[in-house]
């Protein structure tokens, strides 16, 4: 398994050190190569000079060999590690430095050796010593000889080694310092994260109102903190909504349950006639019906929340859907001698699930009928809006909705007049279902109302297309 430090701080430090180490290694490599090359350049220069010096010192011995005649005594064997060999072109050794201790600087010379300008090269002696070697052809009186001059590279490597030692000594110190520095730096940079984590730990479902403190909203950590706070805010809103919804739902469920229970208990207290029992049971069943309806509405909404509802979309005329919706509830309006007028262009088509959309409009109309006084007029007006939207207004002449209630009318179980609507058998979910239905169709719903001036609910839906062949399907007005 790979080694992986647990916290970011150590990981960052490790990376610092690794990067620095590889940079230093690269530096050392390049520097050593340069040093080596320039040292060898000097070396070679000296070697070539020596080769020329040797030429001047060559002297022929009577026995056919060659000797080096020194112009002054200490120049005969110029330096330690300075080797000379002289060969005849026929391949016989004429001279060898004593320092070579009979080791050959290579065998008898080839035909071309030393003919061109001498170029130093590295060769290895039989005893393992690496030497720099250059050779040239000279004439001793009338005889052609090949002169080889060589330097041991020992000194070169020694100098390089010393340089390396200095580097090796310095590197670990630099790395340790970098490690400490990096660790301190990472610690300082990450300190705000630690404090954020500590703060975040204290935030629980019960204390969602807490927020992280942000020192600098412009830097990266500040932005992270802001995003986190934003998430917290949304979470808090969702939690609050859920809490309110649960409380409301249990209240709504308790109301019919209380009714069932008390009606039953009271009925059992003394003997009654079958007709009276019948009435009691009927009354209990009515409450059961309400509970059923409530649980079904809740189920519909929770399915909608979970995204389980699949819309059976088709291109339909919004006006015809409005007419259908109106035909469902128009008898209620008739009872109150109200008039439902529907006007607009039947050619405006929306892509929608007919039943769901109709239910949304039915809910709006049902509300309008309930809240409007007798003999008033309810207007359903359809028009095309900006940006390819279709607008459907349901305008009533009811008492209007006080502005403080307006933002909440689409909330689940929200009631403007709590006693009255329950008496009418509403579940308090109608407008929530309507809003869900419209939003599921990528539309929106708003309410505009002034007290005493009636209310206007406006649905906006994306226009699917404009069909010149109008579909005037649906009920009458």
């Amino acid at each position, binding site marked *: 398994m790979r080694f992986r430090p647990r916290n970011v701080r150590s990981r960052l430090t490790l990376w610092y050190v690794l990067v620095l180490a590889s940079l230093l290694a690269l530096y050392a490599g390049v520097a050593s190569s340069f040093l080596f090359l320039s040292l060898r350049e000097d070396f070679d220069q000296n070697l070539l000079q020596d080769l020329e010096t040797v030429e001047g010192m060559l002297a022929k011995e009577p026995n056919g060999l060659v000797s080096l005649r020194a112009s002054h005594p200490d120049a005969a064997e110029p330096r330690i590690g300075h080797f000379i060999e002289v060969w005849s072109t026929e391949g016989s050794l004429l001279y060898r430095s004593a320092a070579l201790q009979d080791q050959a600087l290579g065998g008898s010379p080839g035909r071309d050796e030393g003919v061109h300008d001498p170029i130093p090269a590295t060769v290895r002696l039989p005893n393992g010593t690496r030497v720099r070697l250059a050779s040239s052809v000279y004439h001793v009186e009338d005889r052609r000889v090949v002169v080889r001059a060589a330097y041991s590279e020992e000194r070169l490597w020694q100098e390089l080694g010393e340089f390396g030692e200095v580097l090796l000594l310095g590197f670990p110190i630099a790395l340790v310092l970098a490690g400490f520095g990096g660790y301190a730096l990472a610690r300082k940079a990450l300190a705000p994260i630690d404090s954020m984590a500590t703060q975040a730990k204290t935030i629980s479902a019960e204390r969602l109102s807490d927020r992280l403190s942000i020192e600098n909203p412009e830097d990266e950590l500040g932005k992270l903190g802001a995003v986190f706070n934003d998430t917290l805010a949304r979470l808090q809103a969702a939690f609050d909504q859920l809490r309110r919804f649960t409380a409301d739902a249990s209240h709504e469920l308790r109301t019919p349950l209380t009714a069932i229970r008390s009606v039953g208990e009271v009925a059992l207290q003394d003997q009654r006639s079958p007709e009276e029992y*019948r*009435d009691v*049971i*009927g*009354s*209990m*069943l*009515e409450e*059961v*019906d309400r509970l*059923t*309806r409530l649980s*079904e*509405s809740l*189920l*519909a909404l929770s399915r909608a929340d979970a995204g389980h509802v699949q819309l059976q979309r088709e291109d339909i005329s919004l006006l015809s859907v409005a007419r259908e919706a109106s035909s*469902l*509830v128009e*008898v*209620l309006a*008739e*009872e109150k001698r109200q008039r439902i007028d529907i006007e607009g262009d039947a050619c405006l088509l929306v892509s929608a699930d007919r*039943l769901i959309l109709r*239910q949304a409009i*039915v*809910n709006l109309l*049902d509300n309008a009928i309930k809240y409007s006084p007798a003999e008033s007029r309810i207007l359903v007006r359809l028009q095309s809006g900006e940006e390819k939207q279709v607008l459907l207004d349901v305008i009533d002449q009811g008492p209007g909705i006080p502005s403080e209630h307006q933002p909440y009318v689409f909330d689940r179980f929200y009631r403007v007049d709590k006693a009255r609507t329950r008496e*009418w*058998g*509403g*579940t308090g*979910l*109608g407008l929530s*279902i309507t809003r869900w239905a419209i939003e599921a169709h990528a539309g929106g719903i708003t309410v505009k109302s002034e007290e005493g001036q009636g209310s206007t609910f406006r649905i906006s839906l994306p226009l699917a297309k404009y069909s010149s062949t109008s579909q005037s399907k649906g009920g009458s007005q």
Partner: protein
Amino acid sequence: MRVLVVEDEAKVARALREGLEREKYEVVVAPNGEEGFFLVNAEEFDLVILDLMLPGRDGLQVLSTLRKRGLQTPVLILTARDAIEDRVTGLDKGADDYLVKPFAFPELLARVRALLRRGRTEQSQPLRLADLEMDVTARKARRHGQVVDLTAREFDLLEYLLRHKEQVVSREMLARNVWKETSRATPLDNVMDVHINRLRRKVDDPYDRKLIHTVRGVGFVLRAEE
């Protein structure tokens, strides 16, 4: 007519037994899937009412095993899970109809009647009750020989009630079959009340003998006797 009820909830099972026996069905109750499975193999039934959520053996399992063995008995599924997928699986596995809990009893009776009738040549009953007659093709209703003037919706409503005469019809049944509205979340109760009232005014008010009766908390019934 023998009906097997496979239902684990004792109260519901008892209510089903009593309600069905009142309608002159012979009822056998199995409290779990194993017993239901055994009974259906051992004895002969005209109809099985099967709860899907059973201890021991899942209702759907019972159903599919039955169908694999070639038993043709009609099966009515009861399910508390109001999910389309469940219904589809139920019908795929060979159920003939389903009912979602909580159901209205009149609805259950209507389904049971429909399933037992299925496959037999249906004798066309004249749409008549006491002195009320309906001619569906001409869309005319007569009471005591007098033509009653009805709107389209009122006619549909009266026709549905008459087709189910002497049976209690629930609001759900009316919403689905007369208004074609599947969602119970749609506020139709007030609408129904208005239509029933209007129908009463036209059909019953001029005569001594009342035909349309409200069964409080349950629904409506068209019945000749008081």
